[in-house]
């Protein structure tokens, strides 16, 4: 029972003047940049207890990290079982920098053609094997697609600029690039997806996806006190790793909990019910309407709440621009002028989120003030003109396409409002295609949609977004991870140059140019910056992660919430 009064803690990056922030008011008026505030003092953590964490979705494909297609739910689980070589931290100037985490040092050479990674000494995987240079090399090679049996569709393309990974000594590897890669360390974090797995996990590819062996604060391998394991669509239960390599600022061994259990609860209303009813004592959500409710609950002292809109993802409508109708620019422009993102924000996100007109958040180095991006205001007449132009050009009588969405009620509602808004432009016939969350990445990969309600692109460095919009793989094959099939040579060129450009100002300009191209071509219809909220029962604390090993302040980006610091009142 909570002896300590519940705190409605909100650490949002808000208040551009660096004020005390924490504004729980409606409308999300904070500027979304700047520092995190000092987390409130929740007292001394107590040991023991269990957190049952409600996730947005199940991860059908499991956690063979080099091959997995992890979404928010999957990344959260991965964060508890694996660690990444680097982690995001506040750079002290309102932005993010990627500091060594599992690694002790991550250093580029002068022209960014070689990066040297040295891991900390004495870290072991859950199966007792050491985290050493050999293991790091194996992992990086696996992500590159060089390890048979665990070759994925996404990461080989992401890590294409890597030429070789070489072991220098027991703890050090050098990563040699075939082109200068300025922001390689951002990719090394990969929004929490580039965790280090034990070699044993890759040794038997057949069960790699369910045989998770990492270095993280929780383990499912050889559990002693807890009935660990993954029952799909039910639960993922892990016990505390007694040999975890981190301590808190006072030298106390992490994690504090005995056990953590993740439950996929796709319907957000049900997730909240679970939290309120006691089935769950922690959950995450990016649904604005729900966050508004949670804020009220936090004010009333019923839940503990942590929000993050730092280096936020963008919620947007992705258009498939390779096939009709959206290979036609007039069709795209019609939607760009006709979609009412402000109304969407008001109706579906309770005004919690802020409008986005570019794919980069305010704390991203490429952020451009909205008025400079060139995104048009909503104009139904203009939209109608573009629509008419499309109809004339193609001889069609209506603009006809499918809207792809997950089959939960929240997104279905959004899809219907979008459908209705677009119908107001003129003869627009959009049919809704509902696909389960576990399936939707596959459907997107196949390009089977006209308009896809999507959410992606978190992070502080735009270099990590290259994979989503670049037209080809390094071998020249089509890049299917570019779901919208954008094939814009200018965007390709800008990303290529920026990747190797050492001057930060020039890099920034390249990426800002990308934003302007998006505004002109309307490949994607940016709507809002996602806010992620992490809510917990009033006796669960430590939502804000502990200090990083070298003393830096961590930042939470998107849905990746480190769980090592969670604790429960005893």
């Amino acid at each position, binding site marked *: 029972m909570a002896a300590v009064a519940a705190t409605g803690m909100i650490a949002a990056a808000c208040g551009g003047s660096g004020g005390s922030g924490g504004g729980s008011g409606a409308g999300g008026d904070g500027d979304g940049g700047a520092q995190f505030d000092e987390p409130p003092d929740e007292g001394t953590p107590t040991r023991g207890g269990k957190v049952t964490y409600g996730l947005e979705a199940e991860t*059908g*494909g*499991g956690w*063979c990290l080099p*091959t*997995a*297609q992890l979404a928010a739910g999957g990344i959260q689980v991965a964060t508890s079982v694996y660690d990444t070589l680097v982690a995001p931290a506040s750079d002290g100037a309102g932005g993010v920098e990627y500091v060594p985490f599992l690694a002790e040092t991550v250093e580029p050479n002068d022209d960014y053609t070689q990066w040297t990674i040295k891991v900390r000494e004495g870290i072991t995987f859950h199966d007792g094997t050491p985290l050493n240079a050999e293991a790091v090399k194996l992992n990086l090679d696996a992500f590159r697609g060089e390890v048979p049996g665990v*070759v*994925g*569709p996404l990461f080989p393309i992401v890590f294409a600029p890597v030429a070789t990974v070489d072991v220098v000594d027991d703890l050090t590897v050098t990563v040699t690039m075939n082109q200068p890669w300025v922001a390689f360390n951002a990719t090394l974090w990969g929004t929490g997806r580039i965790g280090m797995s034990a070699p044993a996990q890759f040794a038997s*590819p*057949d069960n790699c*996806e369910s045989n998770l062996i990492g270095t993280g604060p929780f383990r499912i391998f050889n559990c002693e006190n807890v009935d660990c394991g993954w*029952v*799909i*669509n*039910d639960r993922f239960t892990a016990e505390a790793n007694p040999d975890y390599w981190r301590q808190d600022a006072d030298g106390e061994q992490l994690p504090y909990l005995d056990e953590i259990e993740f439950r996929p609860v796709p319907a957000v209303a*049900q997730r909240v*019910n*679970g939290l309120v*009813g006691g*089935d769950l004592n922690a959950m995450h959500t990016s649904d604005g309407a729900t966050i508004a409710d949670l804020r009220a609950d936090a004010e009333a002292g019923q839940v503990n709440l942590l929000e993050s809109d730092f280096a936020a993802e963008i919620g947007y409508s992705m258009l498939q621009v390779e096939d009709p109708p959206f290979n036609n620019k007039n069709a795209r422009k019609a939607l760009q002028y006709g979609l009412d993102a402000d109304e969407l924000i008001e109706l579906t996100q309770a005004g919690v989120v802020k409008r986005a007109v570019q794919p980069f958040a305010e704390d991203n180095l490429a952020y451009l003030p909205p008025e400079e991006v060139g995104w048009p205001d909503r104009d139904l007449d203009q939209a109608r003109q573009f629509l008419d132009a499309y109809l004339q050009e193609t001889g069609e009588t209506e603009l006809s396409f499918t809207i792809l969405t997950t*089959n939960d009620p929240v997104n279905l509602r959004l899809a219907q409002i979008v459908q209705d808004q677009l119908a107001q432009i003129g003869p627009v016939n959009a049919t809704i295609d509902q696909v*389960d969350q*576990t*399936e939707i*990445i*596959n*459907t997107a*990969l*196949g390009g089977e949609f006209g308009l896809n309600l999507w959410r992606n692109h978190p992070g502080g460095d735009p270099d990590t977004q290259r994979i989503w919009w670049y037209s080809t793989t390094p071998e020249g094959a089509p890049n*299917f991870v570019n779901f919208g099939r954008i094939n814009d040579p200018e965007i390709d060129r800008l990303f290529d140059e920026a990747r190797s450009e050492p001057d930060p100002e020039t890099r920034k300009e390249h990426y800002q140019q990308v934003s302007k191209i998006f505004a002109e071509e309307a490949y994607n219809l940016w709507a809002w910056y996602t806010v992620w909220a992490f809510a917990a029962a009033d006796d669960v604390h430590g939502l804000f992660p502990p200090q990083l090993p070298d003393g830096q302040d961590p930042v939470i980006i998107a849905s990746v919430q480190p769980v090592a610091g969670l604790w429960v009142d005893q």
Partner: protein
Amino acid sequence: MGEEARHRLLVWALVAIGVVGLVALVVVAPTGVTVAAVAALIAVAVVAFAGWRRLLQVVVVLVLVTFFVSVLIRLLPGDPTDAILGFSTPEQRADLRQELGLDDNIFSQYWDFLNDFLRGDTNYYQSSGQRAEGTPVWDRLGNALPVSLLLMFYAQVIALVIAIPLGILTAYRAGSRLDKSVNTGAFALIALPNFVLAYLLIYYLAVRRDFFPTQGYVPFGENASEHFRSLFLPALSLSAGLIAAYMRLLRSDMIQTLQEDFITMARSKGLTTRRILLRHALRPSSFTLLTVAAINLGALVGGVVVIEVIFQLPGVGLLLFQAINAKQYPALQTMIGIIAIVYVLANVVVDVLYSVLDPRIRHARAAG
């Protein structure tokens, strides 16, 4: 001991042995052996009590049902492996096609399906995009089945607990105001779909007041009182239609029985009303109850699926629902097949039990 009593004793002894043996098997033996043993037991019972013809009938129905299920996947247009595996290499899809027997003709596909099915080798394909591996459906069904069975069991219990007293009461007071209003209530209850009742219960007892959880399941082993709390509203929703059915049937049955001679005689002997009602009138009606219970099995199965989805109880219904959402067609086939087979066998068992227990049938058989 009379002929009849001895017969009955024999039957119950056999049943007891069967049950004990079954439990032992389930605990000790691997799935395949248990399934085979159960099948054999049922087959023997059917032949013993209903003849070879009936057994043949059952087998034919089973074959046809499994054939229908195995063919379902061919109804999908295009390449089903597309939907199942999604983004994957052509080799993986070809492998899957091979495994599902889609390239063969219908009959060899059916044969493969049956083989896999009987051996318990039924896969649940993940759409990892990389491999066509999966976890066996049996495992997941094994976890889910107890939840569904418990739910059905509780629903029946609740229905009986409410219906029997009501049935007796209204039979005793046939024609009275009470009788009429209860009848009207029952009529309305039949028209009320179980999910509508569920919504009402959820809103008034779980949302407005906090008496029960809105969704979720707690196993008995984890917390007994929470377990009952989590299953109460679902079981109550399911029981609605049953209550009405049982009550009405019991009522009319008892009205008839109460008019019979032996009741008048008992009354003249001075037996109390209560004794007459409970011991002499109720007993013959229990067969009818059993009958109606069995008939409603189909409705109950459908109801269980819907209620599990509404309350998010991890039973077979929810499993089905999730497989549908995730387009796991092979797993879906297997689940549907298993449900159908169990349903057929359950009906057969009830049939046999009925003919064994009902004195009228037994007498008819003995006479003819």
